[in-house]
C-alpha cells in the first residue's frame, strides 16, 4: 500500500534514519525518473548508469536535505545536473538546443539531437509509438521541458528551477515541444 505521506515528508523521514521512507519515495518516483533519463540519453545502458548516479547523489546529500521546494523539483534538478555532466563529457559541450534564448528564437533552425536511435517498445499503440519517435527528434532542451512536464508533473516555474533557466525560456521550450508534437501527430490524436 502506498505511503500516505508526501514526498517531502518521506525524504525528511529518511534523513532522520527511516529507510522504509526511502523505499516508498523510490517506488513513487523511479519510473518517471528512469523514463526521463531514458528518453533524454536514448540509450538503455547509459540511462541505467545515470539513474543509479542520481539516486546515489540523493542518498549522499540526504543529510543536508531541507524541504525548500517540492521534492520532485529537487530530484529532477539532480537528474538534470547529472545529464548535463553526461552531455559535457560525451561531446565536451552542451547540445546546442540549450543555448536558446526566448528573445532570439532559433528553435526552428536547431539541428537534430545528438543521438537518434530508435526508442520504440512493442505492445504500444501506433499513436504512442509515433509520439515516442517524434519525441526523439526534438532538440534535447525542448524534449527535456516536455518530459519534466509529463513525467515529473512540474509547473513552468518548477521546470525553470530544475533546469536553471528563466521561466520564459522554460515556457518557450515547452511550447515548442508541444506544438511540434501536436503538429506532427496531426489528425492521429484529434480523431
Amino acid at each position: 500500500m502506498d505511503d500516505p505521506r508526501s514526498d517531502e515528508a518521506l525524504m525528511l523521514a529518511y534523513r532522520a534514519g527511516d529507510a522504509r521512507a526511502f523505499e516508498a519515495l523510490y517506488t513513487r518516483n523511479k519510473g518517471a525518473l528512469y523514463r526521463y533519463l531514458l528518453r533524454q540519453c536514448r540509450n538503455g545502458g547509459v540511462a541505467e548508469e545515470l539513474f543509479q548516479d542520481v539516486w546515489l547523489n540523493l542518498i549522499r546529500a540526504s543529510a543536508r536535505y531541507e524541504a525548500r521546494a517540492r521534492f520532485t523539483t529537487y530530484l529532477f534538478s539532480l537528474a538534470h545536473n547529472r545529464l548535463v555532466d553526461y552531455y559535457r563529457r560525451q561531446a565536451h559541450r552542451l547540445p546546442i538546443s540549450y543555448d536558446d534564448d526566448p528573445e532570439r528564437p532559433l528553435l526552428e533552425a536547431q539541428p537534430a539531437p545528438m543521438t537518434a536511435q530508435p526508442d520504440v517498445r512493442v505492445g504500444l499503440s501506433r499513436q504512442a509509438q509515433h509520439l515516442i519517435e517524434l519525441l526523439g527528434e526534438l532538440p534535447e532542451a525542448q524534449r527535456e521541458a516536455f518530459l519534466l512536464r509529463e513525467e515529473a508533473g512540474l509547473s513552468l516555474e518548477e521546470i525553470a528551477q530544475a533546469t536553471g533557466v528563466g521561466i520564459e525560456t522554460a515556457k518557450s521550450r515547452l511550447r515548442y515541444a508541444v506544438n511540434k508534437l501536436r503538429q506532427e501527430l496531426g489528425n492521429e490524436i484529434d480523431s
Partner: protein
Amino acid sequence: MTEPKPDELFEAYLLGATPVSRVYREGAQDQPPPALDTAIVDAARRGAPARRRRFRQPLPAHWLVPLSTAAVVVLSVTLVWTLQRRELAPVPAPSGAPAPEARVAAPPAKSALRAERKADAPEEAIGSVGKMPAPAPLPDLAQSQALAKKEAAPAPAAPMREMERAAAARPAAPADGVRAESKYRAARAMAPAPAAQVISVAVSGAPGAYQFAVGIRSPDTGCDRYADWWEVLSEDGKLLYRRILDHSHVDEQPFVRAGGPVPIQRDTVVWVRAHLHPQGYGGDAFTGSVRAGFRRAALSPTFAVGAASQPPLPQGCAF
C-alpha cells in the same frame, strides 16, 4: 469553425488532459530493471543519514574539558618518553645496515600475509560473495548488505599478491638485502597486465530470467582503459548474457552494475567474468549456480576468448 491558435492550444495543454499528454502517458511504461531497484534500496538502507550521524554525535559539553586535558597529558608523556629513548638508543653501524628505503618498505610479517590470504579465500554464500575495499565514507551504490558486512580490507589483486610474496621473501638480514630487493623488483616487473576483477555476484528473479548484480573492480583511467562489460558464460564457454558498460568508472571503484534477464535455471553452473578495454579478459571470475551460490575462482584468460568478438559489443565509451 476556426482553428484554435497555437498559443491557445498551448494554454489548453498547460491546463492538462490534452491528446498529446494522453498519448504520451499511454507509452510511458518503461521501468528500471528489478535488480537495479534492489541495489539502490540496499544502498539507501546502508546510507541512512541517522545511522551515519550516530558516529558523529558530539560529546556532552561537560566531558570536553577533562577529555582534552587527558589527551594533552597523554601526548606530552608519550613525546617525552619517546625522545628520551631515542637519546639512549645506540647509533647504528654505518655499513651493512639496510637502506632507509628498505626499512620504510619493509614487508608485512609472513603470519600477517597468511592471515590476509586466508581472508581472501572463496566464500560460499548464495547471492553475493567476495571482497570489497574498506568502507568508503558513503556506501557504494549497489553493494549488497552481505558484502558490506564481509568487507574489512581490500582484496589484493592477483599481481599484488605476487608482489607480496616477493616482498615477504625480503629478509631483514643486511647480507641478503640486495638479492631480496632484486627479486622484489623482478616480481614487480613481471606483474601481469591490468584486468577487470569480478568481486561479487548477487542474483534475484526467477528461473529462466534471473537478474544479476555484478561487482567489479577495474583499473579504469577513462575511455582509453575501462571495464566495458561483464558477462555470463556456460561451463563450456557459451555466451549466455552480456551487460555492456557504457562509460568508465574512474571515480567509482569498485562498482556494481545489474543486468539480465539471464536465461538459466537454478542448477545451471555458469561463469561470470569482466572484460577490460583494450586488454581483454584475465581478472578474477566467479563461478557457481543460483542454487549453490557463487564464489571466486581462477579462470584462464584464454577461456572462451572468442566471446570477445561476439555481439552485443560496446558502441562506444560515453566518458
